Each structure stands twice: as structure tokens, then as C-alpha cells.
């Protein structure tokens, strides 16, 4: 299904989803994408540029892609373990549908920056803080954004 990947890549590079720049990590390997995502305005991540790795499995689109933040980010749905894995309902293998496109996945990921999903959190302490003390959460998120995601 390399054809589909190429097609999606072409679409994404020609008309990138809002707030994103997309390119291959290695020109030889269409299964590894690198995305630079701008923190959405109005969120604690505004002004930050977050790097993500999109890994497409061999049998994509039958198996879901894998998303990892390579830039450190303070977010309930991104694992704070150096891997930066993002858990997204639609990316679970039992829920993944081949018609979903990477652009849609990325758009959803960006939306998650705007509105974290505390029900499905991977970092439960951050999720709790988000629910109970929004101010403190935003302060830390902004601080991290400044510290790790402000560079180019």
C-alpha cells in the first residue's frame, strides 16, 4: 500500500493541515514521517513548535499509525517517559479504520492540544491536575512549552 502512503504524503505536503509542517524523516523511508505542529492559539501550547514522529506499520492502512511527540510536552494524553506516545482512541488497533487518513489523525492530535481528554489519559496525575487545578496545569504546560518547544 505504498501508493496510498505516497498519495497521503503528497496531499499533506501540498496542502498541509492547519498549523503543521510535514516531511519524511528519511527520504528513503515513506513509513517515517516527521511533523512540526504549532501549538494551537488559545491553548497553553500556543507559540510552541512540537515535533512528532508518525510511524506507519508495514500493513498500513489496515493497522493504525503510531504517534510520538519527540518534543517534550506537558499533556495528559502524551506519555512523559521519553517516548512521548500519544494515546488516541482512533489509533487503537481494534478501533482503527482504514479509511482514516493521517491528516485526520494529526488534526485530531492537534485538537487534543486544545482540549485534553482526561477520561482517556495516559498521565493520570496531569489529568487530575487539569481537572482540579486548571491554572497550575496551564502554568506548567506553558513553562514546558517555553523550555522545550520554543526553538525552531
Amino acid at each position, binding site marked *: 500500500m505504498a501508493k496510498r502512503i505516497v498519495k497521503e504524503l503528497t496531499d499533506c505536503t501540498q496542502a498541509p493541515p492547519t498549523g503543521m509542517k510535514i516531511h519524511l524523516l528519511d527520504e528513503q523511508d515513506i513509513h517515517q514521517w516527521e511533523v512540526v505542529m504549532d501549538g494551537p492559539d488559545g491553548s497553553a501550547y500556543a507559540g510552541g513548535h512540537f515535533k512528532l514522529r508518525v510511524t506507519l506499520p508495514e500493513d498500513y492502512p489496515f493497522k493504525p499509525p503510531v504517534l510520538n511527540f519527540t518534543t517534550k510536552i506537558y499533556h495528559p494524553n502524551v506519555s512523559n517517559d521519553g517516548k512521548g506516545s500519544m494515546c488516541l482512541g482512533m489509533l487503537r488497533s481494534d478501533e482503527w479504520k482504514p*479509511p482514516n487518513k493521517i491528516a*485526520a489523525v494529526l488534526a485530531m492530535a492537534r485538537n487534543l492540544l486544545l482540549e485534553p481528554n482526561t477520561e482517556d489519559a495516559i498521565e493520570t496525575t496531569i489529568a487530575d491536575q487539569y481537572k482540579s487545578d486548571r491554572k497550575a496545569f496551564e502554568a506548567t504546560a506553558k513553562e514546558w512549552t517555553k523550555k522545550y518547544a520554543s526553538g525552531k
Partner: protein
Amino acid sequence: MSDSIGITAALGLTVLTLSFPDPGYFGILQENFKPVDTSLSFSLQENSKIRTLSTTASSPGEDLDGLLYVPTLHRGQCPEAAGLIPVNATRRVNLPDTNSINLIALAPWINPSCTLAYMAAAQMDPVKTFIFYLPDNSTAIPPLANNARWSIGDGGRWKTTYRYPVFAISGSTGGLIMQNLAYYSDNVTNMPNGEILSQHIDPRSYIRLAAEVEVSGHNSLPSLWVFLLIVLGILIMIIAVTSFFLQWLQRKRREALRRRVISGEVDIEALGIRRVTVPASVLQQMPLYTFVSDNAVPKSSSDTSTQSSPPTSSPAPLEPPSSKPEAPSSNPNNPNSPTNPIASQPSPLPPADPPLSEPSKELPPHPAPFSQPTCAICLDDFTPYETRIRELPCHHIFHPECIDPFLRQNSSLCPMCKLSVLPADYSPPITNAMVRRERLLRRMRRNLHPHDPPSIREVLRFPRSVVRSSSGAGTGAVAPVLPTTEVPAPVRVRPPSSGGTSLAPPDSAAALRAQGAEIRERMLEAEAARAPVWRKVVGKMWPRLG
């Protein structure tokens, strides 16, 4: 290679003189056999100078006793014995004519043919054992059992031919007993001290020599082995019975689940019990035809119009759409396919057994039921009058080269709408693991809301994707971005038997879905908690239990 002690070894030999009334008149009673005063009769005790030559048919610890005698050979056999056995030595005819009294045979070991003749003769009598001696008058213990002196030249086969143990005593002892067998073979009056004896003993009584070979019995090892073997045997039997029972039970459960799958009560894949793939025979039943322009259906309104009224209502210039029409006789496009018209009905048919020939049903070109310009798997547009497409029972269309591998290897659910493409009465091979998961699921379902089973069941039969998406409430907010490639899903068309599965009303559905997700989560947890080590071990013993 020591003494051939085998299991049993003789520890000692006792010879006594016994008196007993004629069993012909008095019967064989233990108390009738009385030892004769040893000061007046022959007796002998040999402790140690005994070799065990054969342990056949002996049991450890069980002493061997009986009246001593010399087996009678056929005329002409073993002439060498003539000088070694007194003429009037006790023979069978000198003993009561009954097979109910144990005997012990005695004979000199002269040469292999004599020995064989004696052992064959003793085989005819109720002998408990045979005692040989080398006629060399030696007082020394006889040679070891493996000594060439005892060789018969048949490789030891005689030990299994003759069903009694065989011992050897020294030449002098043997000769002495043999001599006394001559004294005590006839009337009391002719015996040593006959006069005195006849005063105490009824002259009609027998007075004969009897012997007892004491056999080692302290060796508890053999019986321990027997005991262990019995225990082992019982264990194996228990295991076999249990295993048989379990397998029977599992087969019952598999059959039950299979019936429920076929009846539409359980959807294996939608429940997340197990991924199911589509067999080639079912796949070939799905229509294959050439895509026709999407313009046949007005694009804008197509959503509502097609949704409300199933495929038939989207008329097309060329040919009525897929569902029923079965172009009666011929499929002009496809001369090489042996199409049977019945098979061209969509899904609800049972997987008619594989007609082998490759793509089975090629329908004439016609528009697909909805506006579906693009293959959702490869994202390529279909070219009218050119692209061959496969239509699933839910009426979603794809390139066969895209959808076929997916259905064969990944899932039995439509990638677009997650409805099962399998015929209603199709059941995938049911495994024990599936049975377990389904049972667990059912148990949890019961525990969760015992008072409200029907609606819960509704939820659980709900296609998986729908149920799951509720697990993250946040997704709601994101949803609008998603359905970029989505095409309107048709009204649920899964065939009749799955009847009850109409969509739940939207508001209660949300709650129910949440429950469904909860159940599934719990199920996974519970399953992780189960499957302990013992199950793996047991699984190895009974492969199918795994």
C-alpha cells in the same frame, strides 16, 4: 553379575518327614499333615548353600513347600540317571493321586537333556519348585547361576518355558535327600524305625518327605514398585477420565457458542472476542462488477435518498443493482465462471462450498448503491466503466485487490461501517479461547446489571467501533474533523436473523455504550488476572484446554 538373585532368592531349605492319612478318605486338611518325631525320622536343615537358578513364577517372601518326589521320565529318557536315583525313590505314584497337594521335585543335574526331561516331566505335576543337585557328592555351595555348568544351551529360554522357580543344592545334600526319598516311599514297616513308627501311626497313613524352601521376602523393593505402578496406573486413569470429560465439556461449549453465533445472538468480532477473517468461499460470494459513473445518483441528495430506501431504489440505466436481480441465465462478461444463479444473491447465503474457480461472480457493470467515488483503502478514485469493484453486503465498495486481502487476513468487518460481511448463519471455527472469553463476557454482563439484561445485550451486540468510541468522552469534541472520507453508511442491512439489533435510541445508547466499554475493560482485566500458571501447565497436558 553376582548371583542371579533376580527378585527372589532362596535363603534355606528344610526337609521334614510328614505323616498324613490318605486324602482319598480324609480329605486334604492342613491339620492332618503332622511332622513325624525327628528323632525317629529324617530331617534336614540347609541354610545358605542354595543357589537360585530361576525365579520364574515365584513371589518374594512366599515360601515354597510341598511333598518331595522325583518326576518320572519316559522310558529311555536320561539313562544316565539310573545309577543316581534309587529304584524305590518316591515317585508320583507313591503319593496321593491328587493335584491338590503341592509337590517339590528333586533330581540330579546330569546333563542338559536329562534336566530338560525332568523339568518337562515336573511341568505335568503340581510342583511348586524344582530342586537340582550336581551328583558330585560335594559339600560346597553349587556354582553361580551363570556358571557354564548350568547351561542348557538354549540361551536361558527354559526359564520361561517352565513355570516354577528352580534352585540348586550341594551334591552331598541332594544325594542324602535322594537316598531318604527311597526310604520314605512305601509302607511304614519298611522305613527306618518302622516298627516304632507303626505303633504311633496308622499304618494306612502316608509317611513321606516334605520340603520347604524359604525365600527372601525382606526385600520390600519389588512390592514397592508394584505399589507405585498401581498408584501411577490409577493416576493415569484419573487423568484420562478427567481429560476426556473436559474435552467433552469443551466440545459441548464450542458447539453451543457456534449455535449462538449462527443464530446471530453472538457476534464474535463485534464483541471483540476474537478477530475473525473471511474465508475465500464467502468472499467469492460477494458481487464483483465494473464501476459506473457516480453521477447516476445526484450527489448532493444522495445521502438522504439512498439511506432511507435501500439499494433497490437507486435505479440505474443498465441493470438493477446488486441485491437480488441475478441476471437469470448468463453472465456474459464472465464465460469461465460456473455461476449458479442462486449464488449471486448477496450475503445471507451459506458459504456454498468452494466452486474453486477464482472470482466467482462477475456482475454486469452498474452503479454502486451510494455515491462512493473513492476506494477508502487506497484512496484512489474509481474510474467509470473501467475499475472493477467488490461490493460488500453493507453495500460499501472497494477495489477487490484492496478489500480482499483485508478481509482474508485482518477482519471480517467492513472497514467503513464495521458491519460484519459474513453471512448471518456463518460461524468461524470456534476455539476454546473464544468460548472462555464469551463466557467471561457474559458473566460480567450479568454481574454488571443483573436487572437489565436486554439493553445491555443490545449494547454488546452493537458494532465494536461505536461502542468503543465512547470510552473517550473528549473524542466528541474532535469528531467533526474526522469523517472526511466517510460515506453515509446504509441502514443496517444485516440479514434478518440478527433481528433485535436495531440501533438503540440515541440518548440511552450513549449510556449503554459507556457500560459496554466498561464491561470490556473489566473483561480484559479479569482475563489478565486469570490465566494463571496452572492453566499453562494443564494446557500442556491437555492441549485443547489451553
